[in-house]
């Protein structure tokens, strides 16, 4: 593993890496030429299926398999929605790919669209990414100017348009059906599934939704082959485990010396990420805990840092999953309630409000945290947080989308893993009131901005 050469980030750092000439000098657009030169859409789907590629956007669904859910022989149109909403706190790998190697992303989109017979791709990009937006648009313009996009590409019957579509600062637009609703010009309220987007998605047509990093893997799978891809990462352990194959972009931020986005084979551990790439916990301090893959995935203790960050690893220590493989490191000075304050206020702000358990549960937990931080916590609040955590989400079956599960996991993990610290904090900061059982008033919520 020490000699692993970056693949997805290979061009990042080169001068003008975002321009067409540089991309082509480094072997760019060979994969799409190869595919147009003699592969069928089914060939591409089969290749991606056998590669074991799983979605990098958070859910880890096998990409090739998802494409097979599209109706056969559909007259069209079929749409591709490229998910570049990237709003999961601590995650920035999509941004780096789009800013520094937009043509790699575009080639990935071309391959994905060829395979799924989509002829229009909408790339939904969060509005907070102005540089990525500009680089992508100029890369798309370069492609139209050189006949790589548009009608009858390379003289074949493959045609493709890619349109950038800007979001408007709402995390929920990353959820695939929220994205579709938003694209259609509506509030980004996630849809009840089924039907899944593959059957009925954008504009009520079959739709593929894929993440930027997922698509960026495609040119390499086509160029280097399935065996190469499967030689990287953690193999499947049995028929029910699809494995964790391929290179992965790991983000590390928070209390490390060298925050950044680093590429490694799937299965890197948190400790390796921090020590080998992140320059260690900052200021010579000890690490205490971490977010495993965006805040939605819950909380890992320092003792759990040797668990591989592959699709199966975080679940073994009670986390929700690999998520975006974006790690936030917290040193020994961070209190468990500090962590919960940051996560709960995020989800309270970002709940779309459609499902009552999520809307009320997230804002209630934020108010509880505010009260605890103001020295008015009760031991009972720990139980309340746990109850809210157990009551909201797809897991208990009370909400439409997974945002609520993401809100629940930090609370549940915190109570399971740090109950002693929580009790001690409340007793210390509220010596006279920690035992109160009766309902207490919420603090006046400070209304901040939007």
């Amino acid at each position: 593993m020490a000699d692993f050469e970056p693949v997805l980030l290979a061009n990042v750092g080169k001068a003008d890496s975002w321009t067409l000439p540089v991309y082509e000098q480094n072997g760019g657009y060979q994969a799409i030429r190869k595919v147009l030169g003699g592969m069928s859409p089914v060939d591409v789907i089969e290749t991606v299926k056998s590669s074991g590629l799983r979605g990098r956007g958070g859910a880890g669904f096998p990409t090739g398999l998802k494409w097979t859910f599209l109706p056969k022989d559909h007259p069209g149109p079929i749409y591709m929605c490229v998910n570049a909403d990237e709003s999961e706190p601590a995650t920035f790998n999509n941004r780096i790919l789009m800013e520094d190697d937009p043509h790699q992303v575009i080639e990935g989109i071309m391959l994905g669209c060829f395979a799924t017979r989509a002829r229009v791709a909408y790339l939904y990009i969060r509005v907070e990414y102005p540089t990525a937006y500009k680089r992508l648009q100029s890369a798309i313009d370069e492609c139209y100017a050189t006949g790589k996009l548009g009608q009858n590409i390379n003289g074949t019957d493959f045609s493709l348009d890619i349109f950038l579509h800007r979001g408007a600062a709402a995390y929920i637009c990353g959820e695939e059906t929220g994205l579709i609703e938003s694209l259609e010009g509506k509030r980004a309220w996630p849809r009840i599934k089924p039907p899944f987007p593959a059957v009925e998605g954008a504009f009520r047509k079959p739709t593929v939704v894929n993440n930027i990093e997922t698509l960026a893997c495609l040119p390499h799978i086509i160029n280097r082959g399935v065996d190469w891809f499967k030689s990287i990462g953690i193999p499947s352990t049995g028929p029910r485990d699809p494995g964790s194959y391929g290179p992965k972009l790991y983000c590390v931020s928070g209390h490390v010396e060298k925050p950044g986005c680093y590429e490694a084979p799937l299965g890197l551990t948190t400790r390796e990420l921090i020590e080998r790439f992140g320059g260690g916990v900052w200021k010579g301090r000890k690490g205490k805990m971490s977010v495993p893959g965006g805040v939605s995935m819950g909380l890992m203790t320092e003792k759990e840092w040797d668990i591989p960050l592959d699709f199966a690893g975080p679940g073994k220590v009670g986390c929700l999953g690999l998520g975006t493989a974006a790690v936030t490191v917290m040193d020994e000075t961070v209190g468990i309630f500090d962590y919960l304050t940051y996560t709960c206020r995020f989800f309270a702000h970002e709940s779309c409000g459609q499902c009552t358990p999520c809307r009320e549960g997230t804002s209630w937990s934020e108010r509880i945290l505010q009260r605890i931080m103001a020295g008015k916590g009760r031991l009972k609040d720990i139980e309340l947080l746990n109850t809210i955590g157990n009551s909201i989400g797809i897991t208990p079956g009370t909400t439409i989308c997974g945002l609520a599960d993401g809100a629940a996991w930090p609370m549940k993990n915190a109570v399971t893993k740090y109950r002693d610290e929580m009790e001690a904090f409340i007793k210390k900061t509220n010596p006279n009131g920690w035992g109160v059982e009766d309902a207490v008033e919420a603090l006046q919520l400070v209304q901040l901005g939007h």
Partner: protein
Amino acid sequence: MAAGTANGVTWTKPILTPEIRAEISAYFPRYPNKQAVTLPALHIVNEKLRCVPMEAIPEIAEMLELSPAQVHDTLSFYGFFKAEPHGTVRAWVCRSISCALRGGDEVLDAMCNKLGVKPGGMTADGKVTLEFGECLGVCEHAPAMLANDKVYKNMTAEQAGLLADELRAQADAGG
């Protein structure tokens, strides 16, 4: 041309200039229906007017062949679009976890103090609107800010003071 006053600002109707209309119409061929141009249209109006005034909504709706309520319903979901103009420069301070761990909340406080506003507020001279943002996707540079399409990296409370002056200067230079 009729004039309408709302939110303390006087808008001359029609609010959508021929240029704005042309820009919006250019998006129609991209989508199978006009409703999908709602967000692009709101962005275009917002960029030109630094807000989306209530009075503009019927005009946008007419272009998109929607009812004003449909456009307003969508607009109101996204906190990004405001009815009243934001400052010449609009700035966001990240308050999510990776920034908070490195002093993001302190940077937000310092910026607020220096500019004399609360989060979401605009300076009295109309030059700068300061908001908090959730993770801006630049956590490797935490604590981070975004203003005028530029990311400000590894902020400290002291730098916030300097940046407040710089943002005012940018506003004087036209935003």
